[in-house]
């Protein structure tokens, strides 16, 4: 299991387009991936879960993955957030 903490920097947070980019990236990995915000654990492959998660600019979350490609999955998603989704 790999966990990394990251702060969402892009202006809109995980809304609309960034949310769908995030979910599509997560979908490329075999591991189970979760976004942990405070006490809540959200399935990173669920567009509805991510959008309903209310993750806005400045929110710090943990990305947790468990499975054969867990390290790569966490790195890819953290990088996406740090790059502000290419904005």
């Amino acid at each position, binding site marked *: 299991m790999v966990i990394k903490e990251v702060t969402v920097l*892009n*202006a*809109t947070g995980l*809304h*609309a*387009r*960034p949310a*769908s980019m995030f979910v599509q990236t997560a979908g490329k990995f075999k591991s189970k991936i979760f976004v942990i915000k405070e006490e809540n654990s959200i*399935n990173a*492959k*669920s*567009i*509805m*879960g991510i*959008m*309903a998660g209310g993750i806005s600019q400045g929110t710090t979350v943990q990305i947790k993955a468990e499975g054969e490609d867990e390290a790569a999955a966490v790195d890819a998603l953290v990088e996406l957030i740090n790059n502000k989704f290419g*904005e």
Partner: protein
Amino acid sequence: MFIKEGIIASPGIAIAKALVYEKVVVEVSQAKHEDSAVEIKKFHLALKQSQEQLEKIQIKAVSELGEEDGAIFAAHAMILEDPEFVESVEAEINDHKFCAAYAVKIVTHRFFLIFDEMDDPYFSARAADIKDVGTRVLHNILGVVLADLSKLSENVIIIADDLTPSDTAQMDKKKVKGFATNIGSRTSHTAIMARSLEIPAVLGLTDITETVSTGDMVIVDGLKGIVTINPDASQIKSAEEELLAYQAHLKELEGLKDLDAITLDGHKVELVGNIGEPGDVIGVLKNGGVGVGLYRTEFLYMNSETMPGEDKQLAAYRSVLEAFPDGPVIIRTLDIGGDKKLPYLPMDDELNPFLGLRAIRLCFKEVALFKIQLRAILRASVYGHAHIMFPMVSSVTEVRQAKVILKECMKELEESGIPYDKDVKVGVMIEIPSAAITADIIAKEVDFFSIGTNDLCQYTMAVDRMNQEVSYLYDPFNPAILRLVKQVIQASNNAPGLFTGMCGEMSGDPIAAIILLGLGLDEFSMSAIAIPQIKKIIRSVRYEDARVIANEALNLETGEAVVDHVLESMKKLKINI
């Protein structure tokens, strides 16, 4: 025979047999089951069927409506594959022993509520998508077969509770002649779709699905907002006559498209359109508008997830300017605040947002943001006749302040060697009473005025027109408003080269047309569809007569008296609305 009254959503008259397109109301019991595996299998089979149906609909939508509308169904497909959705349904089946149908129903509703309660139009739209998809899966589980709207053997009027994008996308548009639904408003999906397909529609009929049966003869009158069920022969005959008259009326208006808006005695005015985005110019051109009197640029900002950059704005403004090589395009700078917010621009809650930090006031606070827009407009100005308009100006000081910032932008462009139109026209929107009263002072600083009657009326009469308790006080025909309009036009007439337009709803109101003409308004800006009718009225009156009617109106005591006076005068002059 009986008649039901609803909301006018799309004009026209349709006479055809009803097709009741029944959905939802399938009662799903909270039935428990014995075997979870069977129910889960049922659920997955329904998911697969739904995927296949959506693929077909998407192909049809893309080819008939375009990529953008087709994309909705790709979003629907994503919901079907969503692990949160699928796992939640499975959990209800496993843990609570609910049958597949009930599990889908409650999970759909749960997600619907999460999105529906979010205070953001983007998410409310997603809520509707979730409901649409959930209903589809539910129908597939229960084996409910809906009427296939893509295969119709005769002309029909669709009677439904409400219509979703997936319903309208698959319809055989040649056979569907009208819509009548239980719910919906002028801005709901069904209404927008009906207008773009030019199908008459009456919505908000409450229980039309229960009062009509498939095969009943129905008249949908989208002009009066009524639906006649099982009409007798004479009613059908008169509906047919009205339909012919309506078609002739449309043809007459269409014939006016390329004619000038000129009175019988040769006084010419300009009729232009209000637009929210570049695509709206199509409607303005189609209806014979010679330019744009109000380009509401805030939609460019509101439809974007991040602040639109200079190049993105330039592209939008340029495309509008190029659509009117000979006509003016009045670009209103950002009018945000009040009830309009941007997700990427934090704004504090205010006690009185309509009297607070909005429009030009906000732009003075966020100068960097304001300058990006001004630079984009200036750069676009070489592609046509750009006019820059500042909204919510309350005094000449603000006009001067805005012009200083505009000058800075011009200087920056010059220093970078970027071309712009040095004669770009600068004007203000007159929507605050203090600006109307001091129009003669402001006139010295600008090239044009555009009167925004919606806000001018709200601020003058101290009435929130969305508040049903007091909205009856909102009346653009009130002599107070007419006198302010006259004062502004007079100030512009006394300043050489100035012109005055109007971009509020009043300028598209057929009853107001003669008064505004008579008061000396130079430019009328309105939603595109109103242009032909206003042109017809202007072309059928003498300017001299309009001036007399307007002057008489100014001395009347109430808004009602003004309306009565206009209607009577039009009757005397044999001008039909």
